[in-house]
């Protein structure tokens, strides 16, 4: 995972949604290829425009379970849903910080603050 992605409950849920959309569109694309059916042909079978098929497969249109089922049906497939348990997998992503780092939250401090300098002769002299 790229270091810029901040894991929050909302961002993880969003990521799960996007992954689901990607898996669904890739599934249809794979089935198109297996059957050697073009997007134009699939659009004709569904009675829709080719551009709509393209938009569904690109994620620009919300691909519902119904439309996914219809597309696969026209390609000679039946949709079967399955799940993957990521709850335990997610826990393994937790990073254990050394106690020393956690201790930094309190912050160390100094006995003398401000100007701790003395004026001296330089080494170059």
């Amino acid at each position, binding site marked *: 995972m790229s270091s810029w992605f901040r894991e929050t409950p909302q961002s993880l849920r969003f990521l799960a949604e996007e992954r689901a959309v990607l898996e669904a569109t890739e599934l249809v694309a794979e089935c198109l290829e297996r059957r050697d059916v073009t997007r134009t042909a699939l659009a004709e079978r569904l009675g829709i425009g080719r551009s709509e098929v393209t938009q569904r497969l690109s994620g620009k249109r919300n691909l519902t379970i119904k439309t996914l089922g219809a597309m696969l049906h026209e390609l000679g497939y039946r949709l079967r849903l399955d799940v993957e348990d990521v709850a335990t997998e997610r826990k393994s992503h937790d990073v254990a910080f050394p106690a020393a780092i956690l201790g930094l939250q309190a912050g160390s401090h100094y006995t003398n603050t401000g100007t701790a300098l003395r004026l001296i002769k*330089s080494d170059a002299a």
Partner: protein
Amino acid sequence: MSLYTQDELDDLARGALEHLTGQLVVRTAEASFTSRFPRSDFELEVKGNLSLDVGRTRDGLGVLGTFKLSAVAPEADESDPDAQWSVEVKLQGLWHAREPEAVTDDQLRAFAVKVGMMTLFPYARAHVQAAVVASGWAPLTLDVLTNNAELLRSPDDPERVELDLITVQASLG
């Protein structure tokens, strides 16, 4: 040993200021920082020193301030004498001046204290603070410096500044 009051330093520094044209460059000439892994279970004692070198360039006056600070654990002993963090930064200020060769050595030294150090110090504060924070230790912010700062006061006479501490270099910058 040449000890001067603040008023005497003012008079000397004016002799150098008259030559300035107003153009100034401040740059970091050298910087280093070392640090152990940060800890929060003890307070650190910070010590440091500042040395000033001043000189004439072909067309101006230059001041090189070397700031060294280090933080040690409160009960550092022979078994663990090393600093928890230490920083050294050399800042160079170059003031464009007319006839820099006409400025006397004492005028140069006074200029280094009255103008040079005061100009470089904020950059040193910022550098020290950023370096310490980046290493994970709590930030250390040096006090805002004034001309009557304790660091300038001679241990022999707290009302005077030991101008000999400022080194005049034959070639600077």
